């Protein structure tokens, strides 16, 4: 498997991975705002968000129709739809594509659910690897607390109830998340995750993320084409970049 850079795409893909409650969505949002305010071409895509597949997924989840195999396949369908319809064309057009969860989420979750690892990896081998993958590594207890404090009503599949780990959703969620964390850690070296300490303050983490992005990407290459003569709005863009980038 190759990265988009290795495949000579003009665009770059940045993915964030981590447990529920690791704060990765907050971090990728802040990264997105920072890049946008610099006038760069940015596109954001979220796991399990394809319009097309959504109805089937939510029906499957609501009615608890999903098995580990169909759970895996329906998420792969969702991913393929976004990949072929949005990610690849935008990467061809030189965008920075930000993904809240990428194939590693499937690698971790589906394997914990009992799908054979080689089968799951085979399903996704049509996809290129991200150019940067941030892994937000938080202590299990910290992530659990964030989720459990915020939304006490855990959903069936989210809590891994289908695995019959425990009849108590909270206990089930704990065991499930613990197993997913093990899978992530096992993949970390193999896929060169950039590990961010997610127990730190939001601003501290964001500063590290921005620093790494600046080092690894030539951000200048992703500028939106300036509209020809009239007014050059470049000044205001630069200003806002400085304001936001100072943590």
């Amino acid at each position, binding site marked *: 498997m190759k990265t988009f850079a290795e495949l000579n795409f003009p665009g770059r893909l940045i993915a964030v991975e981590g447990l529920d409650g690791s704060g990765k969505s907050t971090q990728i949002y802040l990264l997105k705002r920072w890049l946008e305010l610099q006038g760069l071409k940015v596109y954001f895509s979220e796991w399990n968000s394809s319009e*097309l597949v959504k109805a089937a997924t939510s029906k499957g989840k609501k009615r608890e129709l*999903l098995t580990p195999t169909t759970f895996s*396949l*329906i998420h*792969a*369908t969702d991913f393929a739809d976004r990949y*072929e319809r949005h990610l690849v064309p935008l990467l061809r057009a030189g965008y920075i594509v930000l993904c809240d969860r990428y194939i590693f989420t499937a690698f971790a979750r589906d394997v914990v659910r*009992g799908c054979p690892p080689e089968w799951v990896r085979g399903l996704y*081998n*049509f996809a290129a690897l991200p150019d940067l993958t941030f892994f937000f590594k938080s202590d299990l207890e910290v992530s659990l607390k964030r989720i459990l404090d915020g939304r006490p009503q855990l959903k069936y599949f989210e809590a891994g109830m289908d695995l019959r780990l425990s009849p108590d959703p909270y206990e089930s969620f704990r065991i499930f998340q613990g197993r997913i964390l093990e899978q992530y850690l096992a993949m970390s070296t193999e896929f060169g995750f950039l590990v961010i300490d997610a127990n730190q303050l939001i601003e501290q983490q964001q500063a590290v993320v921005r620093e790494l992005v600046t080092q690894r990407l030539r951000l200048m290459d992703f500028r939106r084409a300036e509209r020809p003569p009239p007014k050059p709005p470049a000044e205001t863009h630069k200003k806002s970049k400085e304001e936001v980038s100072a943590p």
Partner: protein
Amino acid sequence: MKAAVKNHIVVPHQTERRFYGHGIPGVDLEQLAGKLIVVEGADGSGRSTQIAKLVEWLEGTGHATVQVGLKRSTLVSEELERAQEGNILSRTTFSLFYATDFADQLENIILPALKAGFVVLADRYIYTLMARDLVRGMDETWLKNLYGIALEPDAVFYLNVPPEELVQRTFAKNAALDYWESGMDLGLSRDLFDSFMKYQITMQKTFRRLQTTYGFTIVDGLRSADAINEDLQKKTGAVLAGK
């Protein structure tokens, strides 16, 4: 041939089962006492007629049956139908969506029915899905991994009917060629008739190639429905007897 009047019921013989690849986690293959019979073939090849006749014969000879087919899952059939109408799916998505539909029926209908000792009749199986994708340029290794979840059937009958005859049968029934069965998404020809012929020829070639891997029985679909069914009954009877 009226088999229904006979009062000797064949108890299906247990044979060794396997999945094509990784299979479905947690399934005990030894518990699958029933039989899985697949009928493959293009639209107009007589699949549903043959299945209806087989069901009648099987029930007459004391076997309980269950029928499955493509795009019939509770999980995604409606969504798949809608997506297909809009023609907005790209090929990998299309492929995975069909695989989800197949897996849902495999796990929720086929495997439980086999466990309960039913004869399951499948109107198409993974071969049609693979052939369609192969014709559209999908990677064969990828498809084999994907459909490694499938259970190897006890028999696969491929009803072979040449495209010239398929076209006549389709017109006799509908007076219109189907967009997908004509492979119009492939851009083989802007002419629907030309495209249909080209597409069906390519599909038949692909089926013949798959036949060498999966070893299904090619049945001459040009004979009368009764003659074909007699043939299928004999072959199915042999499967039930474990021959």
